[in-house]
């Protein structure tokens, strides 16, 4: 006979909302929710009233209107008649460019500094500690401004490179650091260029595949395949074959050099010396034009060297055009005095005369070098001071933080691991790559990824040096011109939020993949 007595069912009383833990949580959440809704409503009503008072509204129509401002660094085609949306997109690309460059450089710098800080060389360790402390403890904005000042005020102007006896000379004849930016050669794909690039990429992939295969072979059968020379072979041989094949066949077909009527029959050198210079029609992306330009630049160098009295300054200019047809048209109108064409195409044309000099079509990759024309450098790639300032400052600053992550990661591996590996008979290089690094990377990579995130967010400081990233276009000029503050800043925040959340997602996936698999 059971004698359990049902406890009397408690009546629900109002005071239980405060005193009974079963209900109290609902009370608190309800209060929080109500307060939140009230707060939001307060903000929303203020917004509506303020907008009504000012006669404004919320609308994203301004994105379709012409932006009306220029952007000095354009990864995609853009002019001031394009829409605000396209301007914002150019800004997004610029942000991604500087973030990518910065992350790569910061990783290299940080890894190097982090490992050197653990070096048993006292002086190097102390130097790296000084680097880390100096950069971690000073605002990144100050570093950006300092490097920007070096790039714009401390470097020489293009004028310093002028004349037969310039104060400054270009690095390797191909690079120039001026206060208007750093000029570097631009690669131009010639005959078989795409194939060459594709083969190069495939070879790199092949090297990785081979090393994977060698590891698998070692684990499966115990045969230790050589790794060094086969990797080198896979990397170099196919690319070299493609390079030589195209250089010797399609690349070596001669081109005709067209000059205005009456000047035919001379060599290029005679023509240029007689005219005191030349204006070349440079077809974008055509290696034949680049070869002709290289020949011209070589003539200019030759004219400037030699005994001082004989030095001549040739007036070399280029006229950039989109296509070969446009080049022919420009040549006919007299906008340029020199045009490099395949011989068949030149024979079909009835304009100009042909020079005696024959130039080849070009190698798979030709370098379009910058050169001083008039008062400024032209051609090549102009890397602006603002980009360099932002890139270097962010990289060096973030590198200091990454160095600390790397150091902490390596130090977190117990010494016993090294000793155990050594007692198994592993060589020091193998200990590092097989035992220490796989464990240290698990610790190092998550904080390093969040440093990448910080770098990307810090790239919004571009606005301080006039680099046109998304903060400079959408959050800067577009905002000021249209007065659409709420919309612009909302979109700006959304952009950064999307980047942050996707990087976080990558990080979580990684963390789950490398997590210690426990019970």
């Amino acid at each position, binding site marked *: 006979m059971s004698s359990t007595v049902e406890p009397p069912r408690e009546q629900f009383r109002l005071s239980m909302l*405060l005193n009974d833990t079963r209900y109290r*949580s609902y009370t*608190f*959440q309800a209060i*929080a*929710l109500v307060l*939140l809704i009230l707060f939001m409503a307060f*903000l929303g009503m*203020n*917004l509506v*009233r*303020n*907008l009504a*008072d000012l006669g404004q509204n919320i609308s994203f129509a301004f994105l379709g209107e012409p932006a009306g401002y220029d952007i000095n660094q354009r990864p995609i085609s853009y002019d001031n008649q394009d829409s605000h949306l396209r301007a914002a997109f150019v800004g997004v690309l610029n942000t991604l460019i500087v973030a990518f460059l910065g992350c790569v450089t910061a990783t290299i710098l940080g890894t190097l500094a982090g490992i050197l800080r653990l*070096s*048993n*060389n*006292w*002086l*190097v360790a102390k*130097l790296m500690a000084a680097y880390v*402390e*100096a950069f*971690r*403890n*000073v*605002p*990144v*904005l*100050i*570093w950006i*401004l*300092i490097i920007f*000042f070096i790039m714009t*005020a401390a470097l020489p102007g293009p004028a310093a490179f002028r004349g037969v006896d310039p104060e400054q000379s270009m690095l390797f004849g191909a690079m120039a650091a001026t206060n208007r930016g750093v000029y570097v050669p631009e690669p131009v794909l010639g005959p078989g260029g795409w194939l060459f690039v594709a083969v190069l990429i495939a070879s790199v992939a092949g090297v990785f595949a081979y090393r994977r295969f060698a590891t698998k072979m070692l684990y499966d059968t115990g045969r230790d395949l050589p790794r060094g020379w086969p990797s080198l072979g896979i990397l170099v041989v196919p690319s070299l074959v493609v390079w030589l094949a195209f250089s010797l066949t399609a690349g070596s077909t001669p081109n005709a050099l067209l000059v205005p009527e009456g000047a035919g029959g001379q060599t290029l050198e005679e023509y240029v010396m007689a005219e005191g210079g030349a204006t070349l029609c440079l077809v974008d992306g055509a290696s034949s034009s680049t070869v002709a330009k290289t020949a011209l630049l070589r003539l200019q160098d030759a004219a400037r060297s030699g005994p001082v009295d004989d030095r001549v300054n040739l007036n070399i200019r280029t006229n950039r055009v989109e296509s070969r047809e446009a080049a022919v048209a420009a040549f006919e109108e007299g906008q340029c005095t020199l045009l490099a064409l395949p011989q068949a195409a030149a024979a079909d044309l009835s304009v100009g005369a042909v020079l005696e000099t024959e130039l080849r079509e070009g190698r798979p990759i030709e370098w379009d070098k910058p050169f001083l024309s008039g008062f400024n450098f032209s051609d090549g790639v102009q890397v602006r001071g603002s980009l360099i300032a932002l890139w270097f400052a962010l990289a060096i600053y973030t590198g200091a933080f990454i160095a600390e992550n790397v150091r902490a990661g390596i130090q977190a591996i117990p010494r016993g691991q090294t000793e155990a590996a050594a007692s198994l008979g592993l060589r020091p290089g193998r200990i590092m790559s097989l035992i220490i690094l796989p464990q240290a990377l698990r610790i190092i990579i998550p904080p390093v990824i969040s440093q990448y995130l910080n770098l990307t*967010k*810090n790239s*919004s*400081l571009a*606005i*301080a040096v006039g680099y046109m990233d998304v*903060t400079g276009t959408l*959050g800067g000029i577009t*905002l000021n011109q249209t007065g659409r*503050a*709420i919309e612009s*800043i909302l979109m*700006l*925040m959304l952009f*950064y*939020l999307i980047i*942050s*959340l996707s990087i976080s997602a990558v990080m979580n996936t990684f963390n789950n993949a490398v997590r210690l698999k426990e019970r």
Partner: protein
Amino acid sequence: MSDVHARTVAFVRESEIPPAPPPEAVGGAVKWLRDNLFSNWFNAALTLASLYAIYWVLAQSLPWILNGVWNAGSLAECREILAGTSGACWAVLTERWNQLLFGFTYPSRLYWRPSLAFLLLLVCAAPVLFPALPRRMLILTAFYPFVAYFLIWGGSIWTPVLTAVGFMVGYAVYSRLVTQSFAMGFFGGVVAALVFWLLQGYLIPPLSAVAPIALEAVPSRNMGGFMLNIILGTVCISLSLPIGIALALGRQSSLPIIKWISVIFIEFIRGVPLITLLFVANVVLAYFLPPQTNLDLILRVVIMITMFASAYIAEVVRGGLAALPRGQYEAADSLGLDYAQAMRLIILPQALKISIPGIVNVAVGLFKDTTLVSVISMFDLVGMIRGPILASTDWNGVYWELFGFAALLFFVVCYGISQYSQWLERQLQTDRR
């Protein structure tokens, strides 16, 4: 036994030879050099490269620094004095010293007030920073914000005094009600303080009429220079600490609504750069406030930076909370402590101790980030340098000296803070190894 030696043969030595110093090659400076700098050819090459790098930097900078000019009215004058030799123009620092520290619109006859506030800050922060000092000094710290406000902004003394009284009223109500339950005490205190502050508006005019004690008022837009960085840094960090702890507790809470409010707030703020939040403070925030409210820019910036910092502090504190063993929570529960007591007495003291390095990192980062306000045309230290000083005809082109000075100032403060945090960590280490 003691006479054993007396009977041994004469050529056996009876006393020990004193130990000889090791040969030069295996001890002393030579050994240290060999071990630490020249252990193999690679290390030797690194050492030589580093020595050359150090030499190069010093050779470039030392003559320039030491040959500097300290007394001149403009860059042109500096160059005249230097007469073509390499040298820094430190004169810009001496001539613009006050502008660098206080901005260019703070009345110069009132410089003593922010200076005094800064000195008091050092005194009043001491009991918080150094646990060895008498706890009674914390009362000074509690009153410091009101004193500092009165000194820097000026105006009637009754505003800060009554604000402080409001806090005291709130605290009195809290300590009366907390015996019943923490929530009652907390909300009661908040309500009491709010009611008092609402009444405060009616109390100030009569009080000012009776006792018109006031300092000359300085509007917020006149703050500038390094003073602005310090104000923003200290105010935002001290405000964001409690908010950050509350957010961290909210994020760890088992109540879904409170948890999600905290998560969304934290992730949103951490996902966007500070610059965009400053833009919000500059151009957007006014849309969300009632019409005709005139919050000045500093206050709007303080609000946004505080939100920014509290999200980061919340994540640091959450790390500390997560690092505590579950047993601590369960032990607190088994003692019969309620949530507030468990947090106050058991969990937070330990979690905050774990979080100290992280909190200091956030503080240092935030202090550095206060320079970003120069982007929305406020004249903090960097803003002063980029704006009024470099734009003036006298000092146009003095970059190295000014930015070097700014970098040094920040370095001293931030390095000091991080060294302090390492010291504090050692102090608080109660476990033994």
